């Protein structure tokens, strides 16, 4: 065994820190910086062309039909985010609140609600795609079984319901995450504090609003921000369930799909444009970073003002 003390502690520290640092620089820092640079070039397939200033940004933001696609995809991400905020995080909080009382079977319910979180989005997407099949899918079969034949419909095949179906599947798959993060927050509330509050009021609603909610603010911050980042990066679930074009008729097209189509092309139209793709990536990234940063600061401030 080598004695590193002889060669100096500095060398030992360098030996420890340089390999991981090299990985981060090569595969994180350099690609992120390049992504920014690439957006300012004209691309010919995989070949980088001239420096074109903001031309790629102008095209994706202001030139039709690209601008229209960008707007439409962005609006769908906004809808996804707000819907999941209500359904996924809202229901997650209610479940956490129920589990917090440690009712009979709480351990089992906790394991059950988190199960879909560990499954691959690909498995979940295909499973629900089969379930949503208009004729043989379990969803419509269940509706017919209980006499709600009128409600049975091609959920993924029509523009009015496709995005909603995707949002439902996402909430089903991920509700366990906010549930358990909120639960961990609830479990850290000192019992004395709650007992004291209970002496003042019987009203559960007031208790939640004035005592519980402010005390689990740190959990809320992290759940909100992660959902925000996830919603604007949404790709796998729509890709599996409705395809790269966001069918039907682009009614489920989101920024992730649009970015992928632009950068790598799709089977039908094999055009790929790394310049416009990079511009989209930079815009999505900047949007996420700016909003997440401001929102985190606001949410954190709320945490202190208890």
């Amino acid at each position, binding site marked *: *065994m080598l004695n*590193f003390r002889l060669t100096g*502690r*500095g060398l*030992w520290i360098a030996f420890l*820190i340089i*390999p*991981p*640092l090299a*990985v*981060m620089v*090569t*595969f*994180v820092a350099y690609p*992120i910086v*390049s*992504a920014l640079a*690439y957006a300012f070039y004209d691309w010919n397939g*995989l070949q980088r062309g001239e420096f074109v200033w903001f031309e790629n940004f102008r095209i994706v933001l202001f030139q039709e039909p690209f601008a229209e696609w960008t707007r439409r995809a962005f609006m769908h991400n906004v809808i996804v985010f707000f819907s999941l905020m209500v359904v996924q995080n809202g229901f997650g909080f209610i479940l956490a609140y*129920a*589990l917090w009382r440690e*009712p*009979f*079977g*709480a351990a089992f*319910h*906790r394991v*059950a*609600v*988190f*199960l*879909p*979180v*560990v499954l*691959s989005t*690909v*498995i979940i997407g295909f*499973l629900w795609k*089969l*379930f949503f099949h208009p004729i043989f899918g*379990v969803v419509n*079969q269940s509706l017919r*079984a209980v006499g709600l034949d009128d409600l049975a419909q091609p959920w993924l095949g029509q523009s009015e319901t496709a995005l909603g179906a995707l949002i439902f599947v996402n909430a089903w798959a991920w509700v366990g995450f906010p549930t*358990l*993060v909120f639960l*961990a927050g609830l479990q850290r509330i000192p019992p004395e504090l709650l007992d004291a509050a209970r002496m003042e009021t019987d*009203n559960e*609603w007031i208790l939640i609003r004035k005592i519980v909610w402010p005390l689990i603010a740190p*959990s809320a911050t*992290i759940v909100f921000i992660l959902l925000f*980042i996830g919603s604007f990066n949404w*790709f796998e679930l729509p*890709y*599996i369930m409705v395809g790269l074009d966001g069918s039907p008729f682009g009614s489920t097209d989101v920024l992730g799909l649009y*970015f992928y189509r632009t950068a790598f092309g799709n089977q039908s139209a094999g055009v790929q444009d*790394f310049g416009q793709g990079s511009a989209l*990536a*930079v815009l*999505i*990234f900047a949007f996420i970073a700016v909003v997440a940063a401001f929102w985190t600061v606001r949410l954190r401030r709320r945490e202190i003002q208890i």
Partner: protein
Amino acid sequence: MTTAPTMAAPMAERGLVGTLGRAGLVQILLIANTFLMLFPVVIMVFSGFKSNVEIFQQPFAIPDFTNLENFVRIATETTFPRYMFNSIFVTGTSIGLILMLGTMAAYAIGRYEFFGASFLLLFFIAGLTLPLKLAIIPLFILFRDMGILNTHLSLIAVYVAMGLPSTVFIMTGFLRSLPRELEDAARMDGASEARIMFKIMLPLCKPALIISAIHNLVPIWNDFFFPLVFIQQDSLKTLPQGLTTFIGEYNTDWGVMFAGLTLAALPITVLYIILSRQFINGMTSGALK
């Protein structure tokens, strides 16, 4: 702020609580939710043992579990076992490298005082907030230039880069919490720095290493995006990516599709049921300070 919801909610609750009791209401909610969570998974497993006709005519019936025809077809006719092996190889190698490199960085930052240590920690942690997906174009070009497109190396490189920030974060916090007396005593006995790290400090790190491993295991095992871009050759595909190929080939054979989904879900589900506490802690650990 209106007072309406404040008034309405307790009244509605009192009404329901009056008939069912608060505990009863909680039970109904939890049982209903658990049913909704498990029912789709149960139907998936059941359907794996059925033929098309059985799935279409009796979707909810309990199947004959001795009918393994669908699973036999997958094992003999498809490249499914290959996908499974690839996933185990890529995930295992990545986790091994993440733990090794992550612990090295965390040990240097957490146990020694040197110029720039806090800056380095910040540099690693910054990676936590960057969605690497959006750097897919530069990564694609970088790997093409390195000649590792369409190899497992490209996936492992990205996964290690993705996993390091959280691991350095978790491990640095843990290593800093260990008492200094331990290593001082060993140092007085003349142990080398390397010996102190391997013989004294690392054995204590086991719980944090397990948390870090699980925190990275699930996203890497389940990842679909990076193989989609980097891997074209069928024999190199990982499980989630291979599943899309497989479903495409058998898209009229519902029993085989459900059996494939069941098989794909099996390894992580079994592991999750055995280690559910560690899984839940590991996966929510980035979210908890």
